[in-house]
C-alpha cells in the first residue's frame, strides 16, 4: 500500500513539473502580453494543484497521527490557489486591456468578434467598446 501511494504521488509531482515547464517556456516565448497570460494562468494553476495533491498523498503515507490534518491543509492551499489564480489573472489582464496594450493578431487590426452564443437574444450594442475606444484615443492625445 505504501509503495503504491509513493508511486502515485511521484507521478503526480512529475506531471505537475512537466506542466510548469510548459508554463515557464510559454511565458518566455509567447509573442505578446495576452498570450503570455494564457501560459501563466493555466499552467501555473494545474501544476500547483498536481504537485500539492502529490505532496498531500506523500504526507499521509509518510507520517502518522496528525498527518491527515496536514494533508487537508495542503489540499486547502490547492483549492485556495485554484480559486484565486484565475481571479488575479483576469484582473491583471483587464488592467492591461484598459491600459491599452495592443494584442497581436494576424491582420494588424484587432477586432472584437461577436460570436453570439447559444443564449443570444439580440445583437450586442457596440456602446461599451466605443466608449473604451474614445478613452484610449484621449489618452493617446495627452
Amino acid at each position, binding site marked *: 500500500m505504501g509503495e503504491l501511494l509513493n508511486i502515485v504521488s511521484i507521478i503526480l509531482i512529475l506531471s505537475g513539473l*512537466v*506542466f510548469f515547464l*510548459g*508554463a515557464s*517556456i*510559454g511565458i518566455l*516565448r*509567447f*509573442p*505578446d502580453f*495576452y*498570450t503570455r*497570460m*494564457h*501560459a501563466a*494562468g*493555466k*499552467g501555473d*494553476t*494545474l501544476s500547483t494543484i498536481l504537485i500539492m495533491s502529490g505532496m498531500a498523498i506523500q504526507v499521509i503515507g509518510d507520517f502518522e497521527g*496528525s498527518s491527515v*490534518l496536514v494533508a*487537508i*491543509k495542503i489540499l*486547502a492551499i490547492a483549492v485556495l490557489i*485554484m*480559486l484565486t489564480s*484565475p*481571479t488575479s*489573472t*483576469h484582473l491583471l*489582464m*483587464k488592467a492591461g*486591456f484598459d491600459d491599452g496594450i495592443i*494584442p*497581436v*493578431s*494576424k491582420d494588424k487590426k*484587432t*477586432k*472584437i*468578434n*461577436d*460570436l*453570439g*452564443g*447559444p*443564449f*443570444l*437574444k439580440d445583437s*450586442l450594442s457596440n456602446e*461599451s467598446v466605443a466608449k473604451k475606444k474614445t478613452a484610449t484615443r484621449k489618452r493617446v492625445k495627452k
Partner: protein
Amino acid sequence: MYRALVFLLLLITWIVLSGLIDPFHIGLGVISSALVAWLSSDLLFEDRSAKLIHRLKQLARLPGYLIWLLWQIVLANIHVLRISFSPKINDQIQPQIVRFRSGLETDFENYVLAQSITLTPGTVTLDIDKDVFTVHAISDHAAKGLVSSMAQRVKNVFAE
C-alpha cells in the same frame, strides 16, 4: 438559517486551520465565527429566498461539473504545452478577442463561468458586463469551443 450555515462554514475553516482540538481553542473559534457571522453573513449567499433543499441539490450537482472542469483543464494545459514547445510559435496561434452573451442570471453563476473560462481551452476572460463576456482566445480552435457547452453546463448545475 443562512446565518447558521455561514457560521458552520467559518467554524470548519477555523478548526482545519488551527488544528488544535481542545475546549479553549474551539471556544475561541466559536466566539469569533459567531461574531463574523453576525456582522457580515449577508455577504455570502445573496439570494435568501431559495429554500435550503435547492442549495443542497445544487451542491450535489457541483462535483460532476468540477470533475468535467478538471478534465478540461488538463486538456487546455496539453494544448498550451504543445503550442509553447512548437518550433514555429507564430503559426500555431491566432490571438483574437471574442464577445458573447452567457444568458446566466445571478452574479455567482457568472463568476463560476468566468473562472471556468479562464482555466480552460486557450481562453481568458477580459471583461464582464452583467452577462456579456469579453474573452481573449489564443487560437481559432479555442474560440470555437467557447460557445459550445460550458454556459449550458453551468446553467444546469444552478438550475432550480
